[in-house]
């Protein structure tokens, strides 16, 4: 099997939406992720919910809270990933979640079950390089996606980027997830300094909310990650699946122009 992540980056820039399983309910979230995948998403960041998501803004906090109230667990989320694969979704699915629920599940078991369900990698925002060895020992072949931020020193960038697998998740602003009116100043320099240290693709997330902003970032980066706008637009729709199709189509379209 060719590595699904490498495959996905053949046509850059890629579009990577985020959506949490269990929101607005489990069934619809599975349909939404399927619709995103089949209408333009190149990778999907599949959200696992946590009671205390300290890197997230109000929109994602509220959505993941609803998912928890609906009874989402890692077990149910992994069964949902399996179901999404069964529906013929072939693009990479990256599980994004906080560390404690993974620890409670058991790291090795979690990684094994995630791989078996069809996940391709992990994003754990509260696991910086200093603390990642425990997870990496458990993770086997699947990549733990490394994150870099505008505050990362060049020394840190070098050390972190050198070990990166899959792609780099570059946080475009200091802050939490959420849409911003404009793209951060200095983003192109930031991307350039990351590229000095690695050949893996660099994807930019945090603050990108419109197809126009995606196009602007896509001109600099290898991929664009869209979380809050995706959750807000689809979550507030009366027909989430149709909205997901349109949303993916618009962003993919803007990036292809």
């Amino acid at each position, binding site marked *: 099997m060719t590595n699904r992540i490498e495959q996905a980056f053949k046509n850059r820039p890629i579009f990577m939406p985020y959506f949490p399983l269990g929101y607005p309910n489990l069934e619809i979230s599975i349909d939404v992720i399927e619709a995103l995948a089949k209408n333009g998403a190149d990778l999907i960041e599949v959200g696992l919910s946590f009671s205390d998501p300290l890197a997230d803004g109000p929109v994602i906090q509220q959505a993941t809270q609803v998912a928890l109230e609906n009874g989402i667990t890692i077990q149910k989320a992994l069964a949902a990933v399996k179901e999404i694969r069964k529906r013929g979704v072939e693009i990479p699915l990256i599980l994004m979640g906080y560390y404690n629920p993974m620890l409670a599940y058991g790291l090795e078991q979690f990684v094994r079950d995630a791989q078996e369900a069809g996940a391709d990698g992990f994003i754990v925002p509260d696991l910086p390089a200093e*603390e990642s060895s425990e997870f990496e020992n458990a993770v086997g072949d699947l990549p733990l996606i490394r994150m870099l931020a505008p*505050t990362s020193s060049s020394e840190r960038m070098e*050390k972190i980027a050198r070990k990166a697998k899959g792609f780099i998740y570059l946080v475009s602003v200091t802050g939490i997830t959420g849409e911003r009116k404009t793209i951060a100043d200095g983003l192109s320099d930031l991307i350039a300094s990351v590229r000095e240290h690695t050949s893996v693709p660099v994807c930019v997330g945090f603050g990108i909310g419109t197809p126009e902003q995606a196009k602007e970032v896509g001109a600099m980066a290898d991929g664009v990650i869209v979380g809050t706008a995706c959750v807000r637009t689809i979550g507030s729709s009366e027909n989430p699946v149709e909205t997901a199709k349109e949303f993916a189509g618009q962003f993919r379209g803007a990036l292809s122009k």
Partner: protein
Amino acid sequence: MSTLLNPKFGKYGGQFVPETLMPALIELEEAFVASRTDAEFQKEFNKLMASFVGRPTPLTYAKRLSEKLGGAQIYLKREDLAHTGAHKINNALGQALLVKRMGKKRIVAETGAGQHGVASATAAALLGLECVVYMGSVDIARQEPNVFRMKLLGAEVKPVNSGTKTLKDAINEAIRDWVTNVRDTHYLLGSALGPHPYPTIVREFQSVIGTEAREQILLEVGRLPDTVIACVGGGSNAIGVFSGFVDDGDVELIGVEAGGSGIDSGKHAARFGDATKAKVGVIHGTRTYVLQDADGQIAETHSVSAGLDYAAVGPEHAMLRDNERAFYTSATDEEALSAFHTLCHTEGIIPALESSHAIAEVIKRASTMRKDQIVLVNLSGRGDKDLNTVINETAKNL
């Protein structure tokens, strides 16, 4: 990438934060390490501790309480007499001086009972810093006098309505603000919690409690106490007083958690007391004992005292518990309230509800001890802020 100081306490502690914050933690550690050998910094800190905080705080012999219980002789370390009414000021001033040193202009803080918020607002006013305090809306309702004090001191108090609307959620919001404004903002964390270097910094600034208490008891009775007792929320007052005695192997160290409505009720904040709900996990940047459900979601907690109402405990306490250097027990809301009244009547001291948990343990324990034995209790704060809660709770029982 290695830290200057050990980031772990045995297997606990660490730095579980987003990458955006890592450089700020590194900067903070560097500033802290440099300050320890900087005579000017130490001089300024010690001067403020004496002339502004009013240190050393006294050690009071609780004669009537000792007689009433008929066992051990009880001594109270009077952190309630520190400026702003609790031990929190020691750490708030220490960190605020570090903020000046780092050249930052703004601090954010979380608060549960409001004591750390008041201490932070006070330090900010004294040193000319901008101050924003995050406080759960449940805690705002039950600690109203402290909210007013913070505002009087020039701080902005931001209510937190997410999650359980208590201390845990206030910490989430403070971290979210910090990660957004990290270039000019310091997170003035008030307990011995969070990512390295916070647990170490907070212990160091609170160690003044233990250092003084040790000297004072030696001067007063000529020997060390048999037992030292403190309440444990995140654990800053406890780690402060314990640090003075931790190397004295014969001194028993006892931490008292919030037993809430009782361990069996599930409504409590006893991280060490509930084997079914407390597991080692990661919350707010540190690995420690955390009250959580089977899926790793952080549990709701309950305590009559806002300052102990938190799902995790400082990582150094987790280590002290595992290696049995300290022992941890709990007092229920009812026991703490009863102890509150007892101390008011016997000693003329109105204790904070947090500190009342430590007094509750003294009441259970002193009568089982001999009259020539000594118990030293850290009276971490005064109870003025709790009068509304006590009035309401007392009315319930009439």
